[in-house]
């Protein structure tokens, strides 16, 4: 590791147990007080893990590192994560399919231009022809997608879950509709395990990477459309009595604010007028099915009765209903699926969480 500042050097010493007890306390108090110091500390730790995973730590430094990190399951997992990251980034750098078409990165523009102009005339012409074909195919797909979504929206407004087409990678399956910021990975709704991919005859070494870009486009596109669909999975299983108001658990960052670590996030734009929720559940339902949406203060904003049960696109039992987005504010919500016993007693089947973010309408320029 190359550490070119005093603080980074101190970080490494702390991690390797080389600081005295008073110095350690001072170091810890400093990063508790200052978030930017803590961020630098985490970065140094990750580089240390990286160096160990590459076999670059030797001698006493290696022993000190192992004393700290091999002693716990969490530490061993961090080492494993570092190894996996090296493995996957190495594979990604060798994968010609890794680049999104058209997204030529700044560091590669020069080399791509050199490649094109350094060859015969035929090659630039061939590249142009390829681009033309790709543009035409993209236009056809976009046209087809627009027609499909118009039909799907009409179905959604009637309460019918649109069935996905196998060749339509952009069908709203289990995607959390969310406009993705530039520097955040897409919140993936679902990933196939290698074994299930193998059973479908797909490449087991890659999860459906082709869908990654499409999901990004879908996520940013659907959040801007008039209707958005979301599939929710329960965070509680069936209960006989209605659950009390959710309390923050040790495994969650807390309820009631948008920094939930496990609640699906729904980002609504000003144009989004309706939301369609599909609630996945496990147990067979006998009585009439109801769904309710409540805010974190327990205030019910919506209740739908006598809902039809059906199947999601993955063949799971689900209940689907739609409602106007005007009912949702920038808040966290609990969705409850319930039924009634023979004597009319309400029975909660499952509960789901949802975090809503609202995007302000775009500013319109005033004419001078």
């Amino acid at each position: 590791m190359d550490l070119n500042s005093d603080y980074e050097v101190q970080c490494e010493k702390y991690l390797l147990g080389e600081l005295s007890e008073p110095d350690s306390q001072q170091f810890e108090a400093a990063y508790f007080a200052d978030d930017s110091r803590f961020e630098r500390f985490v970065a140094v730790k990750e580089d240390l893990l990286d160096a160990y995973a590459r076999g670059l730590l030797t001698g006493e430094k290696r022993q000190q590192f192992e004393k700290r990190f091999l002693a716990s399951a969490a530490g061993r997992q961090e080492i494993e994560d570092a190894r996996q990251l090296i493995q996957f980034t190495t594979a990604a750098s060798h994968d010609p399919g890794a680049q999104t078409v058209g997204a030529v990165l700044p560091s590669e523009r020069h080399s791509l231009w050199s490649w094109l102009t350094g060859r015969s005339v035929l090659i630039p012409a061939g590249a142009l022809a390829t681009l033309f074909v790709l543009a035409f195919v993209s236009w056809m797909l976009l046209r087809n997608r627009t027609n499909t979504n118009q039909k799907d929206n009409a179905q959604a407004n009637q309460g019918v879950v649109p069935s996905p087409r196998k060749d339509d990678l952009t069908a709203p399956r289990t995607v959390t509709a969310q406009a993705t910021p530039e520097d955040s990975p897409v919140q993936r709704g679902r990933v196939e395990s290698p074994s299930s991919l193998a059973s479908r005859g797909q490449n087991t070494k890659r999860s459906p990477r082709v869908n990654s870009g499409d999901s990004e486009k879908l996520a940013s596109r659907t959040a801007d459309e008039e209707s958005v669909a979301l599939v929710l999975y329960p965070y509680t299983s069936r209960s006989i009595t209605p659950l009390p108001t959710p309390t923050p658990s040790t495994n969650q960052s807390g309820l009631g604010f948008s920094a939930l670590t496990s609640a699906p996030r729904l980002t609504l734009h000003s144009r989004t007028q309706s939301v369609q929720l599909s609630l996945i559940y496990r147990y067979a339902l006998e009585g009439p099915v109801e769904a309710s949406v409540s805010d974190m203060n327990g205030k019910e904003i919506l209740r739908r009765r006598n809902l039809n049960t059906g199947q999601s696109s993955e063949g799971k039992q689900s209940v689907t209903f739609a409602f106007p987005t005007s009912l949702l504010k920038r808040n966290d919500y609990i969705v409850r699926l319930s039924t009634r016993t023979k004597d009319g007693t309400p029975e909660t089947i499952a509960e789901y969480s949802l975090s809503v973010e609202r995007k302000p309408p775009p500013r319109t320029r005033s004419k001078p």
Partner: protein
Amino acid sequence: MNVPTPLKREWILTSDAFDRLLSAFDSDRDTAGQKYEILRRKLAEFFAARGSSAALDDVDETINRVARRLVEGEEIQDINAYFYAVARLVWLEETRTRGREATPLELAPTPIAPESAASEDQRRTRELRLSCLDSCLYGLSPANRQLIVEYYREEKGNKIELRKQQAARLNTTLNGLRLRASRIRSELSKCVHLCVERNQNDMDRAI
């Protein structure tokens, strides 16, 4: 500063107590939530560095104690410093409970990493993590993916020198590049965690 006396691990964090805890970080709930997340991570790093065998439990215990004090009406001037003080107390109690002296970092005994055969569950979880990592990596923006791929990939040559060259191309320092990679990696970890959790639920339902 009055550091709270040791409390039994019986008190449960309620919604109201959690709300009061968040408001101690910031009046804006979203900002408070972000600060709370960072604080949890700091606590986790502290307990891990101190050799806690149940770091997550110790983190929760620390949070519960501070929240309880707030509910009881204690005025806390510096919430981060208070958390650190309580965390040290929890750590000291744990080391005494486990029947050994509180060991300064430089004298911690050499641990023996246990050999454990990978169970079917572990193998499945590992597969799932790999799938999620792959998926999340390709879910990054092209610029971020390019940065992190170049930063972490295996390649010939001195890795530090290569990173310096990468930093120069990005018009930043090595520390700046390290921070950027760390931030992207943090987002990647969150994505993987959510992906694993979501798909783990799927797999459990399918069983």
